[in-house]
C-alpha cells in the first residue's frame, strides 16, 4: 500500500473531515502518543486519557492546522497542553510516580547494573518539576531541537536552554547526594 504522509492526511481531515484519514493517522501515532504522554504524566490512565483527548482535538480543531506544517511537532504541542490542562484540574492532580513506570521498563536480565542505573535515572527524572521534566523528555525522547521545543511549549529558545541546563544540573545534584 502506498504510504500517505501525515501532512496529506491532515489536509484531508481539515478540508473534508475525512474519518478514514483520521483513523489512519491515529493508528500510526497512537503508541508513540501514549508513551510520550506516559513520560509527561507518570500515570498510565492519565496518559491514555490525554492521548485520546489530544486526538479528539486534532479532529475537532483541524481547521487550525497550517498547511505544510509538520504534523508530529504540532501534535506534541496539543498533547503537552492537554496534559497541562488535565493536571491543572485539582481533583485529578497526583504526584507523578516513577515506580509503576519503572516496573514496566524492559528487563535487563543480562545486565542488572544497567537496569538499576536506568531505574535510578527515571526516579530522578520524575522527581523534577514538570517544567524541567518535559524539556528533558522532548529533547531526549523526541529528539526535538531547541526551536521545536520552544514552539511546542510557547516559550523562547533561551527559556528552553535555561530549563534544560537547570534540569541537567538538578539531575547531577541528585546524583551526587
Amino acid at each position, binding site marked *: 500500500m502506498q504510504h500517505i504522509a501525515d501532512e496529506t492526511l491532515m489536509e484531508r481531515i481539515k478540508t473534508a473531515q475525512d474519518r478514514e484519514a483520521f483513523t489512519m493517522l491515529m493508528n500510526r501515532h497512537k503508541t508513540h502518543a501514549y508513551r510520550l504522554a506516559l513520560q509527561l504524566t507518570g500515570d498510565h490512565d492519565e496518559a491514555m486519557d490525554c492521548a485520546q483527548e489530544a486526538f479528539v482535538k486534532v479532529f475537532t480543531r483541524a481547521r487550525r492546522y497550517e498547511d505544510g506544517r509538520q504534523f508530529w511537532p504540532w501534535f506534541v504541542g496539543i498533547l503537552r497542553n492537554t496534559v497541562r490542562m488535565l493536571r491543572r484540574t485539582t481533583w485529578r492532580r497526583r504526584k507523578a510516580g516513577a515506580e509503576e513506570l519503572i516496573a514496566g521498563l524492559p528487563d535487563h536480565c543480562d545486565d542488572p547494573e544497567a537496569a538499576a542505573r536506568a531505574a535510578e*535515572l527515571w526516579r530522578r527524572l520524575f522527581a523534577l518539576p514538570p517544567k524541567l521534566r518535559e524539556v528533558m523528555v522532548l529533547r531526549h525522547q523526541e529528539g526535538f531541537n531547541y526551536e521545536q521545543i520552544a514552539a511546542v511549549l*510557547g516559550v523562547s529558545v533561551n527559556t528552553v536552554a535555561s530549563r534544560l541546563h537547570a534540569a541537567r544540573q538538578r539531575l547531577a545534584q541528585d546524583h551526587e547526594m
Partner: protein
Amino acid sequence: MKCSEAKENLSRYLDGELPAAQAGELERHLADCAACRADLERWRTWGKELANMNFSGDHDRKLDVFETSVYARLERGIAWILLSLGGALVLASALFYAIRDVLLNPEIVWPMRIGLILLILALIILAVGVVRHRLSTYKSDKYKGVLR
C-alpha cells in the same frame, strides 16, 4: 575560560546549539579540564539512556481499542454541545417568561419585581465582566498561539 563559564555553556554544547565560536572556546577548555569533561560525558550518557528507554505495561492493551474510544469521545463532545444549546434555549425562554409574567404583572408585589430586576442586572453584569476580562487577557496572553 573558567569552569563556571564553561558549565553555563555545557548544556547548549551537548545539544549542538552553541554558536561555533563559543563551541571552539569551550572545546579548548574541555581539553584541559577533566571535571567539565566528566560532567559532559555524564550528561551525554543520561541523554542516550533516556532516548533508548521504552515503557510497557498492561495498559498497552487499551491501545487496541484506542480508535473506538476516541470516536466515542467525539460523539460525547457533540452531545455536550447539543446539551449546552438546549440548556441556553430553556434558560432564555425562562427569562423571557419571567420578564413577561412577573416583571410586567401589576398584581405581583413590588419587592418581588425589584428582586427579579436585580437578578437580571447581576447576570448581565457578570456576563459582560467575563467577556471583557477574556478580551483584555487575550491581548497579553503569551500562550494564545498554543493550541489548548
